[in-house]
């Protein structure tokens, strides 16, 4: 599978990574090399194999529905790059911000 510059653009947008053209060019080469190496994965016959999403045999790990004290707004907002004392603040949102 070969990677195109459009693929790099698309993936960078999906991942919300602002990359310079030089970075994209470099990444195109690096990702191609890595994907080329990884391609050997396709040769493995996996028809009889289940998928492992996590190791171990844990199931039904659940907690009781007991509420605990929240940490509160002051602690929540302490690390915020921008807040008005009550809310986290971001710039204007456009219709396109949810796309891609």
């Amino acid at each position, binding site marked *: 599978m070969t990677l195109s510059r459009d693929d790099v653009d698309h993936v960078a947008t*999906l991942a*919300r990574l602002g990359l310079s053209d030089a970075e994209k060019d470099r990444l195109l080469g690096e990702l191609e090399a890595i994907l080329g190496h990884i391609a050997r994965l396709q040769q493995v016959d996996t028809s009889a194999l289940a998928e492992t*999403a*996590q190791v*171990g045999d*844990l*199931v*039904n*790990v*659940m*907690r*009781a*529905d*007991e*509420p*605990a004290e*929240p*940490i*509160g*707004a002051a602690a*929540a*907002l302490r690390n915020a790059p921008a807040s*008005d004392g*009550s*809310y*986290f*603040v*971001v*710039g*204007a*949102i456009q*219709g*396109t*911000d*949810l*796309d*891609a």
Partner: protein
Amino acid sequence: MTEAATIPAALERYEVVIGLEVHAQLLTRSKMFCPCPADYTGAAPNENTCPVCLGLPGVLPTINRQAVDCTVRTALALHCDIPAFTKFDRKNYFYPDLPKGYQISQYDLPLSVNGHLEFPLGGETVRCGITRVHLEEDTGTMHHAGDVLQSATSSLIDLNRCGVPLMEIVGEPDLRTPEAAREYLVRLRQILMYIGVNDGNLEKGSFRCDANISLRLRGATELGVKVEVKNMNSFRAVQRALESEIERQTGVLDAGGTLMQETRGWVETQGRTISQRSKEQAHDYRYFPEPDLPPLRLDAAFVERVRATLPELPEARARRFLEQYGLTAYDAAVLTDTREDADAYEALVASGVPAKLAANWQSGDVAALANEHRLPLQRSGLGVDGLAGLLRLVDAGTINGPTAKELLAELYVSGGDPEAVVRDRGLAQVSDPSALSALVDAAIAGNPTAAADFRAGKQQALGQLMRAVKDATGGKADMPLLNRLLRERLPEQ
């Protein structure tokens, strides 16, 4: 052309295909994946948060058992299958109300699949398939400074709601009219409230609905272009939005145009939907299994345990009321509207109040008072037991109807033992025929014109005479007896 004229005309040519997606917050005590309280009512912005629901670096989610139970309850009430294996997945997208950059949801192996909801509509039974019911977490909320999204200069983020357990109920595209869509939602909400998993508040957004709607020419087999409609926060809004969409889509199709696959928002004040975004750039949510949460294996024993906790559902209960208590279909529906009402009704009957009497009072005066005081019977001062006592006095003929009405209105809020009040204030009705006869004679003597009029066939004239006797008894006259006595004494000529 008005909507009223357009819709039936449109429905003659086009088949409307509607599928609804409902998001319902679960009535758990704590959030889905952290122990913050699930009820954030009245909390100052961001007060109801912890490192987990804030999505801080290093935190991990834990599954709220009660949320799983609630979802399984819902699934069973909607006749769904509960697969033996289910898991959570991450749905990845960026938005400021989603702190982790992914929502923990369920993708290919949801908690339940393949159910249905049936309801009567216009003399027929509508059956709508339920594709799936799955469990996820709610997002935070955003406020846009400058009121509307489009002109806002900044957005404020409140994460109090973030992480509240949210159930997504995906319906099949089996609905054919806006009215059916509305009725589906009414019934679904009723069931969720019956089984105690959701508070049914559309306005507050704890019960939310999105609709997918498409039109196709009658007889066509291919589905039309699907439009998603959002921002409907009342049943009325859902019906109006869908009607407006049918009108709009009909207009486009009739003019030979093509529809675009898009998301549209209902604008209540304008009475129309407006385009929010096109689906040209399809979302790529990059779902993958949530590595922080082991999967769930819900065995048959667990499912049966949950099933055993399910109450009788509204439709079945109404049917039983019809048969067991001899109620009309209307009364049965009204009295089973909420589980609390139905429980109250059955408590009244169990305490010895005749079924019909209990039904009349509960669906009449009691419902009116509950509405007036915004106080359901169960939490009123009188309570179900007090009402039962009152109605037993009515049934035994101890007090007359008007007295009962007055007492009910008085005791509904303040409370009190009706029997004691009747005894202490001497409100028992005058049912002694000889005592009433004397008063009847006096009334006829005192109102000769009315008496003559009644004799001459004016039925209304009887009212004046009855009032006179009733006043003479301090309102306590046995009204049916009085009526009989008066008619005996004043035979029509």
